[in-house]
């Protein structure tokens, strides 16, 4: 029983073993590779029958777009959805984890999940990691007690609001909400307002872009409108098709056969027990 080559942290979770090495390297000028962040616009609002969530679909890594059409509205429970901004891996992992915990909780209690349950799971997880899990979330859903909308910050604080925005495009989107939101919106008015807010983020914030995703949650029903609006088609497609026939030039070909290092001699029944 030799010692394990790689030491896995005892209970999963994070290992901070390389912290000193990274600090030393960054002093010498070596930069960390950029994370895939969703420099994002995510919004939520409460209308007369429930909750509407909206998000853009661009994922960036530094200044390069790595995914033009990613999904930022994550499933938590049949009646609860969550939009995520910040580091893509963090939002995916945290929403997946809490979604599983909610399902176990549903089996345990035999009831439909409540939004405050999801909220508490998320805020406890994020607080315990002291902000290192960089996930900023907009959580919305309709349960037995009515429609709910919450924002959750990476350090673990939460707000309960009638309308909310998060991400790098949050200011652009909030400008639209603050001008046009009123209580008791109908479904169509609500979808229209959310679309406008996301579009404001898409066109005015460089970290957000591409398409608009919408999720409408009402009592007993949900509508996931993936790519509800696609206001950014490619502007120019060349009529001439570009071909990539040019390859690296072959200057010289030389074949050197390898000699055998080991001589194999067949000796009768080699492998018999």
């Amino acid at each position, binding site marked *: 029983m030799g010692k394990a080559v790689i030491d896995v942290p005892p209970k999963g979770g994070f290992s901070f073993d390389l912290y000193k090495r990274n600090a030393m390297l960054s002093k010498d000028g070596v930069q960390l590779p950029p994370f895939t962040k969703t420099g994002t616009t995510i919004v939520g609002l409460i209308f007369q029958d429930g909750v509407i969530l909206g998000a853009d679909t661009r994922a960036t890594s530094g200044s390069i777009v790595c995914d*033009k059409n990613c999904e930022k509205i994550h499933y938590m429970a049949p009646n609860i959805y969550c939009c995520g901004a910040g580091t893509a891996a963090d939002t995916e992992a945290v929403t997946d984890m809490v979604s599983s915990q909610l399902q176990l909780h549903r089996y345990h209690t035999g009831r439909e999940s409540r939004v405050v349950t999801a909220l508490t799971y998320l805020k406890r997880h994020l607080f315990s990691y002291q902000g290192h899990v960089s996930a900023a979330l907009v959580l919305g859903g309709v349960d037995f007690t009515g429609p709910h909308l919450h924002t959750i910050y990476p350090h673990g604080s939460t707000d309960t609001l009638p309308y909310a925005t998060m991400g790098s495009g949050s200011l652009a989107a909030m400008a639209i909400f603050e001008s046009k939101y009123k209580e008791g919106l109908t479904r169509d008015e609500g979808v229209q307002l959310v679309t406008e807010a996301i579009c404001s983020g898409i066109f005015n914030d*460089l970290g957000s872009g591409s398409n608009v995703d919408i999720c409408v949650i009402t009592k007993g029903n949900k509508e996931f409108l993936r790519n509800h609006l696609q206001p950014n088609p490619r*502007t120019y497609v060349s009529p001439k098709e*570009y071909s990539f026939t*040019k390859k690296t030039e072959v200057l010289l070909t030389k074949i050197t056969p390898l000699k055998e290092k080991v001589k194999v001699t067949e000796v009768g029944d080699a492998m018999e027990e």
Partner: protein
Amino acid sequence: MEDEQTTFLTLLSVVAIAGADYCVVAADTRMSTGYSILTRGYSKICKLADKSFMASSGFQADVKALQKHLSAKHLIYQHQHNKQMSCPAMAQLLSNTLYYKRFFPYYAFNVLGGLDNEGKGCVFTYDAVGSYERVGYSAQGSGSTLIMPFLDNQLKSPSPLLLPAVDAVTPLSEGEAIDLVKTVFASATERDIYTGDRLEIVVLNADGTRYEYMELRKD
């Protein structure tokens, strides 16, 4: 924000292609800082002389100062020699101007395009302190890492080990070059957040100068 410096830069993309009797210089018109857009309609292509156009990416205040400096020098040249500066002459002037500030550089990444004395297209590409080279095509700015490999694939001549020395000029027609530039910018806009809004194309040939515009994605 950790990097206060870069929030004032407008990185954008500029491209230039030289042909047998034409030159195409193109740049997008978005000026941005950090994650915000300052304006969607800013021209980065400057006419230095009848046959020389300079397009620059980087810190736009430095770019403006550089353009003023070169225009002033050009005016003096016109008074002294009674003619406009040729593109290769302007190229040398730009290089000297940049190197003069070697120890506090202009934060400008330039591409100079125009027609030389024989009417052939020429493109000169620079770094921030004045090192330059005459080439057949070039790209600078934030989209250059996306654009250059594609231009290399389409325009780069075969290895000099196989052929005799090749002209620094691309074998495309003017229409094909413009089509290539439009495709290249539409593609760079898809993946680079600093490139977009509108494309400004300047075409120089024996008949004079022509400006063309094309819409790009605004997100």
